[in-house]
Structures are given as C-alpha cells and as structure tokens.
C-alpha cells in the first residue's frame, strides 16, 4: 500500500520548510527511520526520515521547493502487513502526528463540570432558576421597556424568538418597528406639550353671543373669521391692562411692548403656531390678510418658532367642537380658545316667546403662576364683551 | 533645619596602600558607625513611641563593615544596600532627615510614604531603593554598569564602581547566583559585600550553606574573593578598600566576606532568643572595639568619643523634630497611578 511522507512540524513556530536535497532516489528500498530528505526551516537544516520500510515510489518536491507543514514530501510503497501493527492498525498517515492539528475531525472533548463551572455554565438555566420559572426579562429588554414606555403586561402580545419563547431585545425592536415613526413635527409638538404640562395650568370659560359678530363680519372686507375677531379682541383686552399680558422667565415677569399673537393651524401631522406681530395696531381687514399670509407660510414650512408671542388663539370650533382646554405653548402664559357656534333658545320678554340666538364657548387656559382666576376672568370677560360688541373693535 | 548633604570621604585612592594608617580616616569611620548606631537606636525609640509604621531593622554589629563599604565609594558610583546597611548608606550620602522621614512614611520622604523604612533610596545619587527579595538588587546594579559601558563610560583604570550588599542568607537565593555569574561573565566593575552575620532571620549557617566558607564560592563564579573580620574596623577598611581599588583598576568583580554577628533581632519585633550566649561570646561589638583601639593608640580620648556620640544624637534629634512636623501623605491628594505614561494612546515611536 501507499504511505505518504509529510513535512513534519519542526519546532514550535515553523510553518513551512524548503527541500534541500534528496538522500534516496526513487525506486530505492529504504529502511524504517532511514533519512530520506534534507529540509531547511527558518531555524535549521533537518532531515526527514522514512516512517516505515518500503520503496520510495515518488518524490513530490524538487530541491528548492518550499512546502507547508503537513504537505506530502514523498510516497512509500510498503508491504500490506507493514501498515499494520498487531491488532491496532497504524494510521495511514503516521506523519500526521506533529503536523498542524485538524481539530474539526476530532471528537469534542467532554469537559467535566469541575469546581469552576463558569467555563461551561448555561446562563439561561441559572437565570431561570433564580427567577422562579417566570418569563425571564433580560436587562436589555427591561431597559427597552422603560425607554419605550411599554409595560411588562404588553409583552404578552409580542411573540418571543428566544429560547422557550423568551422575548429578546430584537423582538421588541421588531414589534415597535411595525408602528410608524413619529414625524419630526409631531415630535416637536409632543416635546412642547410635555414641557408645557409641567406648569400649573387652569382653564376658565364663558359663553359669548355671536349674533352681532356674525352680522358684523359681512360688513368687513375679507369677511374675517371668528379667529380674527378673537385675536383682535384679545389684543385689545390685553392692551387695556391685565396681569396676564406678560411672559414668565424664572421668577421675572416681562411685559412685551407690543401684543404679538400666535394662531394655531392644523397641518397634516401636527400643529403650527405662526405669529402675527403688533395685533393691537391692526384692524380686522388688515389682520385677516396677514393671518392668511402667515398661515400660508406656515403650511409651506417657512415659519419659525412661535415662542416669543404672548398668547395663542385656538379656534377648535372649526372641528365642530364646542368646548376644549388647549395647552399654552411653553414660554406663553395663556391660550384663548373658541368653540363652534351653536343655536340656543333665547327668551324674548317682549314677544313672550323663544327666539333663536347664536352662541359659542370662549375658553382661556392660563399659567396660574402668573395670575389668578380673577384677573383671568376679567380678561376673558373683556374679550367676550368685545366679541359681543364687534363695532368697538 | 535644612537637610545637609554630607560630605563623602575620599579614601579609596588606588595609591593609598594602607588607608587605615590615616588616623583621620579611622576617626571618620568610627563617626559614621556611631551615627548609624545612634540613628538605629532612635528609630527603635520612635517605634516604641508609635511614631513609625512598620517594623524597624537595625544594622547593629555590622556598622564597621557597612560603613567601610559606603566610605570606599564616591559620587557617581552605585550602591545597593540591604537592611543592615544604615552605616554604609550614611557614608555613601544618605541624609539623616531622609532616614527619619522615610521611617515615618512622610510625604516629604524620598519614597513619599508609598514605601518605607529600609526600602528607601535616592536614584539621583546612585543609592538604589531595595526591594525585599534577596539577591534582586545585584542584577540591577549589573544592568546600571552595563548601561555605562554601552555609553562608553567604563574605560580607563579608574572606573566607577557598583556595590551591592548581601548576607549569609541571601547568598543562597537563585537571583544572587544568576546575577553574580552574569556580572562575572560581563567582567563588570562590581563589588559584592557579603556580611556573614551567622543567622538568616533565625536559621544558622549550618542550615543555610554547606561549603566551608562563603568566600570559597568566589572562585566558582570567577570573581576574586576576600575575607575579613567584620568586627575589626581597620580590617574592614583595609579589605574593602583593596577590593574596591581592584575593581576601579579594571580587575573585574570582587567578593568580600566579613564574619560578624547580628547584635539584634531580625527586626525590632524579634527578640532573637535563638542566639545563644555562647555564640554572642565569640563576637565583640565593632563600635566598642574600635573606640577602645583608638583610645589605646592615643588617637581619641573618652571625651572625644563622647562628643562624637553627642553630636550624632543632636543631629538626629533635630531631624526627628523637623520630620515630626512634616505632612503625612494624603489619600485624597495622592496621584493613584502606577504608570508614568498618563495616556498610553499618546505614546508614538
């Protein structure tokens, strides 16, 4: 049978060696351990010997050729019985011993769980035992719950891909990725509302008769909306003097020299609050034009922060709502809201009958640190009276 | 009081055939011995006063030999003393104040309270701060001498000298063997002072080595061996200065073995009851013996010797007074790093 002679691993570091000279010619009979070939490693000149007696049938590398450790140098033809040794057969490639190891062909060693169990411990089993068989929540999953606002009870609806159905951090990411990301505008609104909500806010309300206003708007160029009347009325009421005509910074109350007002405008995924400056100096027609301009700019995304206005007007009535408590923007102390106009019965003592009247709810949400209910009530009444007597505007 | 640098005596001139013949040198030798003894005594008292952390290790009984070693060195030489070398350290240039500060662990000491007592040193003057592992300092001295050779500084017939101390115990450490052999192979200007004080902590010579005399080992290493009576001050000066002179001339490593007795425990904590009266009776105290000799020869009077003691005690008292008022290290102020590179990422070849 044919037996290969391979390049041995000479020394701890050798990766290859160069054939220098053959000491035996092909066809020659060689004894076991007879020197066959000289090879040069990085470190020294060494000889490779025959692993068994036989005939050198082939030289596989000429002098000068570099071979890697484990490469075949030559083949020996050995007698059949020479390849066996008693009951146990000699490995076909005896020179494999000493060449680079072929770990993957070897059976995995059975590692005994000795005193140091940590080398092979199963973390999952250890953790599960400690958590009393309840569903295990890894530290990363727990952190993701906190960050996302999900509750442990929400996990019941999430399919787990880990061992025994455990929910992994990836599962949560995947679950949340199915939802839609908040748009930047939505996130900005969310942040502003959260910041605003840290203040003590109070809301007051009163109804306001709208008949005079609705008649009056037909006489004004551009037919101003209820929003325009509210802005104008709020500007005049603030200008007349009220503690809420200011903005609070730290413990300093700053009163702006002009009344700048923002107006809440709904866009696709949020609310914009473009600002109109010096509202107290603008008549209703002019204000109508300007508000249309800033709303158009706002919708085009060309509007900047509204934070420096003193208040905002929110006409939630346009959505058919009759009553709401909008939240003032951070940095502003109040927001005036007006609901949808509705028909109400009005007792006419002259005719002793019910007439139809039109009315809307006027709401004012304010920062209670700046002023109290009295001042806010006087302001809201001032606005209401102006709206009921639009000719004064 | 500012710490005063002490003058290094210049005695080991290669021309001085018998340095001990100079009375002046003999008096200075006794002065170093007494200063070391007085300092050791005071450190023991400070320990009793609980002013010194750790133990106190004294060189009692070894002053004559140790001081001779320090006196034969000069600025530029290297000295690696061990625990019983108070006298040699002082003679080589260690200041009293640094001894006191280091024993107290003061922030102002050369070791800044990070290390203490006999581990002190001053690399600026070539005084190596020993580590506790016996024999370890010898190869370091060899390395310093080799560095000087690399730099072309070891030429001529007046070489700088490296000196290390070892005892009958340390002579059996592997590190000592490696290093002494290496110094001999490199033919370095090196002197090994072996103090055979009979006892390695509590183990006597018969359980530490089997050769007739430690000096017999010299020939095995290929170094020149010398012996002397370590209780005889004059013999110590003569023998050590001869060995040092040979080294300076380029004759290669020398080994001196002095026979003496440790007149104290291993440290202050050790009453050394294992030292028998019989053994004690065979060895004198080098300071008493030398004081007597100098008196008999008319070189010093009792009053002179008393003045030397008084002077030593006065200087030590002043140093103790100063050191006691100096700050201890402050854990909050300490620079807690063992690395001299502040940011390894900035190291660039």
């Amino acid at each position, binding site marked *: 049978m044919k037996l290969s002679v391979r390049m041995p*691993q000479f020394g*701890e*570091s*050798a*990766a290859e060696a160069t054939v220098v000279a053959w000491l035996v010619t092909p066809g020659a009979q060689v004894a076991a351990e007879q020197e066959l070939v000289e090879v040069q490693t*990085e*470190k020294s000149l060494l000889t490779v010997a025959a692993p068994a007696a036989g005939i050198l049938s082939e030289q596989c590398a000429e002098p000068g050729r570099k071979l890697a450790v484990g490469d075949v140098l030559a083949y020996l033809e050995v007698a059949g019985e020479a390849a066996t040794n008693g009951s146990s057969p000699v490995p076909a490639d005896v020179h494999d*011993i000493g060449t*680079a*190891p*072929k*770990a993957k062909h070897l059976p995995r060693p059975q590692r005994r769980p000795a005193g*140091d169990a940590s*080398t092979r411990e199963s*973390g*999952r089993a*250890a*953790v599960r035992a400690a958590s009393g068989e309840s569903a295990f929540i*890894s*530290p*990363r999953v*727990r952190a993701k719950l906190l960050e996302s606002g999900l509750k442990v009870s929400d996990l019941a609806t999430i399919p787990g891909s*880990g*061992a025994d159905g455990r929910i*992994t*951090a990836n599962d949560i990411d995947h679950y949340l990725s199915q939802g839609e990301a908040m748009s930047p505008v939505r996130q900005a609104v969310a942040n502003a509302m959260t910041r605003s909500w840290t203040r003590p806010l109070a809301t007051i309300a009163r109804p306001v008769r709208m008949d005079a206003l609705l008649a009056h708007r037909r006489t004004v160029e551009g037919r101003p909306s209820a929003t325009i009347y509210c802005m104008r009325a709020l500007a005049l009421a603030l200008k007349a003097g009220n503690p809420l005509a200011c903005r609070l910074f730290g413990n300093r109350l700053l009163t702006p020299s002009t009344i700048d007002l923002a107006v809440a405008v709904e866009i696709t995924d949020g609310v914009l609050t473009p600002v109109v400056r010096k509202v107290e100096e603008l008549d209703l027609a002019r204000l109508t034009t300007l508000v249309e301009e800033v709303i158009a700019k706002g919708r085009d995304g060309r509007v900047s922060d509204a934070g420096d206005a003193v208040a905002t007007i929110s006409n939630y009535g346009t959505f058919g709502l009759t009553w709401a408590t909008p939240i003032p923007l951070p940095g502003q102390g109040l927001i005036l809201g007006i609901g949808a106009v509705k028909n109400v019965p009005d007792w006419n003592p002259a005719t002793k009958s019910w007439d139809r009247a039109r009315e809307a709810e006027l709401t004012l949400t304010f920062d209670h640190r700046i002023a109290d209910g009295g001042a806010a009530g006087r302001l809201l009444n001032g606005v209401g009276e102006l709206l009921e007597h639009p000719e004064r505007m | 009081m500012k710490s005063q640098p002490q003058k290094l005596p210049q005695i080991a001139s290669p021309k001085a055939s018998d340095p001990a013949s100079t009375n002046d040198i003999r008096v200075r030798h006794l002065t170093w011995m007494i200063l070391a003894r007085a300092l050791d005594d005071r450190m023991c008292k400070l320990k009793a006063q609980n002013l010194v952390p750790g133990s106190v290790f004294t060189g009692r009984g070894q002053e004559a030999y140790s001081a001779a070693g320090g006196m034969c060195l000069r600025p530029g030489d290297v000295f690696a003393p061990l625990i019983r070398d108070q006298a040699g350290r002082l003679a080589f240039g260690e200041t009293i104040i640094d001894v006191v500060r280091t024993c107290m662990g003061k922030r102002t000491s*050369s*070791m800044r309270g*990070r*290390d203490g007592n006999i*581990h002190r*040193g001053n690399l600026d003057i070539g005084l190596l701060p020993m*580590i506790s592992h016996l024999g*370890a*300092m010898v*190869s*370091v001295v*060899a*390395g*310093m001498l*080799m*560095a000087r050779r*690399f*730099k072309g500084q070891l030429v001529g017939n007046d070489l700088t000298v490296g000196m290390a101390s070892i005892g009958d115990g340390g002579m059996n450490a*592997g*590190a000592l063997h*490696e*290093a002494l*052999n*290496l110094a001999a192979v490199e033919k370095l200007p090196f002197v090994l002072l072996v103090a055979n004080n009979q006892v390695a902590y509590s183990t006597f010579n018969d359980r530490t080595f089997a050769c007739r005399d430690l000096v017999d080992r010299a020939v095995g290493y290929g170094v020149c061996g010398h012996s002397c009576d370590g209780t005889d001050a004059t013999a110590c000066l003569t023998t050590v200065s001869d060995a040092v002179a040979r080294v300076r001339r380029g004759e290669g490593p020398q080994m001196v073995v002095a026979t003496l007795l440790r007149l104290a425990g291993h440290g202050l904590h050790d009453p050394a009851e294992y030292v028998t009266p019989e053994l004690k009776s065979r060895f004198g105290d080098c300071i008493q013996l030398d004081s007597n000799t100098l008196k008999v020869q008319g070189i010093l009077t009792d009053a002179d010797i008393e003045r030397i003691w008084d002077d030593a005690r006065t200087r030590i008292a002043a140093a103790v007074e100063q050191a006691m008022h100096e700050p201890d290290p402050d854990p909050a102020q300490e620079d807690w*790093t*063992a*690395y*001299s*590179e502040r940011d*390894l*990422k900035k*190291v*660039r*070849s």
Partner: protein
Amino acid sequence: MTLAYLEAIRLALGESLDEDPRVFVYGQDVAGAFGGAFKVTKGIAERYKDRVLNAPISEDAMAGVAIGAALEGMRPVLEYQFADFATIAFNQFVNHAGTMFWRTGRSCPIVARLPVGGTPGGGPFHSQMPETWLSNHPGLVVVAPATVADAYFMLKDAIACQDPVMYCEHKYLYYHLKAEFDKTRAEHLPLGSAAVRRPGDDCTLISYSGMVHECLRAAEILDRDHGIDCEVIDLRCIRPLDTETILTSVCRTGRVVVATESWPFGGVAAEVLALVSSEAFSHLDAPPRRLCALDVPVPFHPDLFAAHHPDAERIAEAVLETMAF
C-alpha cells in the same frame, strides 16, 4: 511587500537599533549569526554586535539588568526564548519594574519580548499564555499583537513607552501569519486601544493574540451558515484595557462572547465579562459568555492540544448558544 509576523518584529527591532543608540537586545542565543531561538534577531545581531548580546540562562538576572540599564537611560529589549521561562523573572517584572514608578517616581522603560501561545507538540512549558499573571499587577503594560502591522508598530511603540512593556508575541503566528505590509500606509493604531477587526451587529466577539484569527474564522462561519453578524474586537492591549471600545460594541449588540487561549480562572476573559456585567448590564440581552482553554496544563500531543483551547468551530457554537438565549 509580504511580511510574516516574525519578520515584522525583526523589522521593528532592527529599525529601533538603527534609530536609537539607547536600544540594546539581551537574551539567550540572540547574538551573532545564530539570531535567536526563533531567528528574530537573525541579520540584525550581526549588524549590532555590541548591542545584541547573549545572556547566560538567567532569566531573572536578565530582567534585573534591563531594569538597571533603564534607570541609566537605556532602552533594553529582552528576548525570552519562551514566555514560559519568563516566569523565572516574574519577581523582577512585578516587584521591581512594576513598582518602580509608584515607589520612586522614576520610569522603568524596559520591553520584555515574550513568545507566547501554543503550537502542536509544544507541551506544558513551551505553550503558556502569561498575560493574565502579568496584567494582574499594576505598573506593567501588557500587549498582545495579533496582526503583522501591530507586531511592527506595537514593538516600536513599546520601546518608546516610558513604562515596562510585556510584549506577548504569538509563536504560531510567527510564520503562519503573513500579510502585505507597507509601514508608510499601514494603520498605526496607538497602544492602549482595541481594534474592531470586523464590524457586526448581532454579537460581540472579543479576543486577542492568536485567538483573534479563530474569532474571525468563527465570524465567517456564522455569517455564511447562520446569517449571524458578529463584531470581532481585538483587544491588542491587555493592560490598560480599552474599556470604551468593548462597552460601545456590547451596548450595541447586547451579546458578548470572549475567547482566550489562556485559562479561565481570574483571567482576561473574566475581567472583560466583569466589566461588561457591571458597566453594560442594562444592555445585555443574553448572559455574557467566555470560552477559555481547558483548566489543565497545556498538553503535548497535537490531538489533545487541539482540544485544549477554543477554535473557530467551538467559538461559533458558543455564539449560536448565546444567540439562541
């Protein structure tokens, strides 16, 4: 040009001798035409007969010589024939070199080149990994290059470093690892920083020295057969440890496997896992895992040897288990 790992060390050593008269090489059999047990100093020893010197077989005294020479301003580079033999010098390394700066304020710039790691047939005393023992002691810098470029740059930087550097060079990589290397173009990473050898999102694989190559192979297997994307980190420097790179990666992937050729107890892998467990706890989605050599001395027979330390297949299995948690 193509350079073997060992040749990169030789190149760095030769250049250091060329550039800096303070550098000298001291070790067993390094001098003359012989050029050292592994031939690292071959060629350069003949150029510098006065600065590449043979030492007696005195591993402890060699280290003492280096410390003394460093105190005198030299830049000694010690060559130990095998890191295993440097245990004799442990006292000088940890008690003397490692304490020098703290005790005296004086730097001790020595470099000890330690041929580490196992090769088939090396056996218990020619195969050990010393980085755990050495890195436990403050004051020593411990590096373990895994690439040709690192072998070159880290040796030069080690010689430039003011602190004692234990330079662990892997014997198996000496001739088995070859790479294109151009020192003017190759990336020169600083000491003290780890390197991300393969970016990935699913699991962080941490190793150093020869084991980096097993981790890279494991990452390939996992990518090819299982679609698992591993990030492979080469620590490069054991002491100080680049905690930032480790934590950044683990915080992203949430899973970590550390593979070392050295033993498990109190080892570098244990240190990394302690770091991850305490500093990145809330980012972990699976128990951090280590894979070390079996807790017995390094065996002689190649089959036993191959089974003794982690390889790519076993590392891949560990990652699969971690991913399945």
